[in-house]
């Protein structure tokens, strides 16, 4: 749910990075944080366990350009990927404006991808959202690793609706900003559409 402030002339939106454990959601945010100008970003917060696994969420506030004289600000969140943190994942989806599903390209993670995507759909439905009707993109991450599934195969499994999708290697940044740009565009198109513009 976006927040439009006429007083400070800002439009704020919330984007959630979703996906199975260790698929690279936090790595996406870390890359964005490391490669954004200091004046365009706030502090990155990670609520993680001692072994660096996301416990509740990561959070990164980001400023983009202006639209109609309003500064645009995005709040990027990740969810904890591990299956047993589902209660937390549900909470983080509250008020979401756009979702990035980060899939792990390794063949032995395909089942985890499918499970996580089903879980995303269910958790969104619990909050009254329909995955097919909100801004949503898919990222096939870890393309630099051996034993990965062909993109066509992943597309057939995970992207049956044909939403925008991107190959990525979040550790070196390939595809990270392309994914972010795509979801940001979809969010604004939806905002415009929702007001009949």
């Amino acid at each position, binding site marked *: *749910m*976006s*927040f*439009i*402030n*006429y*007083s*400070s002339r800002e*439009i*704020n939106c*919330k984007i959630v990075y979703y996906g199975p454990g260790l698929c690279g959601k936090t790595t996406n945010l870390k890359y964005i944080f490391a490669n954004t100008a200091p004046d365009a970003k*706030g*502090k990155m*917060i990670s*609520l993680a366990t001692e072994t660096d696994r996301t416990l*509740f*969420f990561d*959070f990164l*506030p980001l400023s*983009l*350009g*202006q*639209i*109609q*004289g*309003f500064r*645009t600000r995005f*709040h990027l969140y990740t969810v904890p990927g591990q299956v047993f943190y589902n*209660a*937390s994942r*549900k*909470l*983080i989806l*509250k*008020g979401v*404006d756009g979702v990035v599903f980060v899939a792990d390209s390794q063949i032995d993670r395909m089942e985890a991808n499918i499970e996580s995507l089903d879980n995303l759909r269910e958790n969104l439905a619990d909050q*009254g*959202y*329909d995955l097919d*009707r*909100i*801004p949503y993109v898919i990222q096939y991450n870890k393309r630099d690793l051996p034993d990965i599934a062909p993109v066509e195969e992943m597309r057939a499994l995970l992207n049956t609706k044909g939403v925008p999708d991107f190959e990525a290697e979040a550790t070196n940044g390939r595809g990270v900003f392309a994914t972010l*740009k795509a979801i*940001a*565009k979809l969010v*604004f*198109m*939806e*905002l*415009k559409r*929702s*007001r*009949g*513009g």
Partner: protein
Amino acid sequence: MAAPETVMFEEEFARINRICDRLRSDANAQVVFIVDKNGQLIAASGDTEHLDTTSLASLTAGNVAATGGIAKLLKEKEFATQFHEGEKANIHIQIVGQRVILVVIFDQRSSLGLVRLRVRKASDELNKVFDTLVAKARQPGAVKVLEEITDEDIENLFNE
């Protein structure tokens, strides 16, 4: 399909700021701020220069969401109030009208009793303002900026 957006207009923003300023002074608090349940900072009053209010807003909303999750498991509607006591700073968190979060940070110059009392009064006033805001935002043409977004605007976002 997406949930309706929260909209803040200048008139109501000024009213909310006045309520926050008065609460800060009446409660003898250091900082007062208001966050929506999704973690967006709505207003802040007091010595916020040395505070990362964006992070505070996000973490407070996360905290409230987690506590709400616990409430649900215990079949409670919500735990509307939270209080955290530190060595120097204390933080009082109150859900107002099930939609926004009112946060008061105070030290030994105030007390929990005083903060509670003043928060109750401010909550009633804030509720009225947020009722007005919701009604205003629903009016057709209220959020012109969204209607006027062009495809070019969206393209240009990343070219600056």
